[in-house]
């Protein structure tokens, strides 16, 4: 890569400028291309793929500013430098606002041109390195998920499987004490698997959701709420907590991925249960307001202190005042927020220490009349 010559493109309607610039750079590690107007210049941007482009702001035909815009929409990593014949500060400032890296007032000396070219190329290198690093980080993130999944989950899963089978084969021989030790092992390993699963969710949620978006479909809010309630019911019963559900009817559907949205609701409900006292109530409401579906989960539990509120949707926040010994991974709300935002919605909270918390998920409502034939819509809803 170090051997490769840098590519410089100069777009200017004055032939003398093009000639002298080419001459100045001659003999250096550069490929130089020139264009007399914006249209041809933009063609060259695509063909020649320059590292640095000099653009004269004042040209017949397409204006310099427009050329700048189009260069950036083609490849935002190309470094653009404007040449201003009428060196007014305002046009230079505007060019920089539009994404130009620097400006070169006419007339300029060969040295000035060489220096600004070199700086432009350094800039280009930096931009490319940043882009490459960012891409690498994304890949690492995705691969990390796969690695954790295979290298960590598989062996632990295999250990669990063998515990299952040992217990099964030895069921007639094990003493009560031995059985209970196996039970405890199974339960610890299960917690470990759950934890890995949750971490994986955080790492992959963003990438996952992007992929899931391709298969978004109309979803019934009522059905998602009842699925979520179903999955937390045992937990609620264990703490003698009453889940009071009240839904406005009818509710418009929302557009999204059912599995992740139900997961978001389950997260809010499990939190509400976790931070509620034995025998209390949790209220789940859904209504439509200004073309949004509002789903509210309210508890009368321990609440969240004002200092903590700004952090609860971040990674690894764990409420400190859980009335029992339950402890979470601190990732539930972070995942929930990611899921809701990926659906074009928002999540907010209102809480007072000792009084309880109210979480509200807002999702854009779907206008059923505009989509598909009603019959088909109903079919989709019934399935989901």
């Amino acid at each position, binding site marked *: 890569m170090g051997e490769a010559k840098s590519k410089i493109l100069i777009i200017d309607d004055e032939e003398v400028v093009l000639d002298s610039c080419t001459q100045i750079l001659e003999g250096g590690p550069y490929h130089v291309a020139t264009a007399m107007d914006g249209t041809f210049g933009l063609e060259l941007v695509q063909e020649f793929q320059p590292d640095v482009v000099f653009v004269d702001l004042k040209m017949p035909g397409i204006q310099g500013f427009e050329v700048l815009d189009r260069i950036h929409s083609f490849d935002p990593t190309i470094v653009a430098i404007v040449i201003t014949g009428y060196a007014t500060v305002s046009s230079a400032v505007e060019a920089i606002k539009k994404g130009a890296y620097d400006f070169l007032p006419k007339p300029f000396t060969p040295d000035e041109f060489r220096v600004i070219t070199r700086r432009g190329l350094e800039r280009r290198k930096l931009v490319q390195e940043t882009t490459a690093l960012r891409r690498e980080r994304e890949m690492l993130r995705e691969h990390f998920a796969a690695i954790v*999944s295979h290298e960590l989950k*598989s062996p632990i899963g*295999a250990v669990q*499987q063998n515990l*299952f*089978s040992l217990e099964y084969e030895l069921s007639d021989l094990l003493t009560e004490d031995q059985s209970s030790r196996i039970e405890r092992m199974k339960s610890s390993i299960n917690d470990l698997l759950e934890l890995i699963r949750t971490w994986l969710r955080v790492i992959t949620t963003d990438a996952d959701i992007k992929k899931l978006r391709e298969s978004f479909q109309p979803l019934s809010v009522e059905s998602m709420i009842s699925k979520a309630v179903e999955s937390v019911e045992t937990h609620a019963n264990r703490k003698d907590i009453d889940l009071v559900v009240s839904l406005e009817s009818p509710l418009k559907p929302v557009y999204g*991925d059912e599995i992740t949205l139900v997961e978001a609701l389950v997260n809010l409900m499990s939190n509400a249960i976790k931070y509620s006292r034995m025998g209390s109530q949790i209220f789940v409401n859904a209504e439509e307001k200004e073309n949004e579906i509002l789903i509210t989960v309210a508890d009368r539990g321990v609440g969240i202190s004002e200092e903590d509120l700004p952090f609860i949707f971040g990674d690894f926040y764990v409420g400190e005042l859980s009335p029992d010994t339950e402890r979470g991974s601190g990732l539930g709300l972070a995942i929930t927020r990611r899921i809701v935002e990926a659906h074009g919605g928002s999540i907010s909270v209102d809480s007072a220490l000792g009084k309880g918390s109210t979480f509200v998920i807002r999702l854009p409502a779907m206008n059923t009349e505009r989509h598909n034939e009603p019959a088909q819509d109903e079919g989709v809803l019934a399935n989901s």
Partner: protein
Amino acid sequence: MSKGKRLLIIDDDPDFVEGILSILETAGYEVETAYNPKDGFDALESKQYDLLLLDIMMGRGAEGVMIARKMRKDPKLREMPVLIITGIREQIAYLFPGQPMHPHFVEVDELVEKPVEPDFLLERVSALIKAAEDRKAKG
């Protein structure tokens, strides 16, 4: 019920395989194992089984899926019930957009997640074999 029934397990994780193999053998099944997709498919083609237990993530990727697809095209293997046992329910979501939880690889299949409880495993295995036999009886 399990007497004389022949099962094949295709999974590249020998430790996991041991954990289900002993459950199935204790329950009276005759079980063979293959630890890579190629041996697995060779066994499927050359011998007769009542059910296949299939892992998804093997080798360089979702090679279990390749086996399932090949089976669907094979007139002889198409009817064989398949129990997919996998640790990757989440990842399946983006392998098969639109069918996140239960991808129908072959006509008669079912998916359980690793690790799997003995009673549940045995129940699914016997139910799938029975369903396949009923289908055959009906012709």
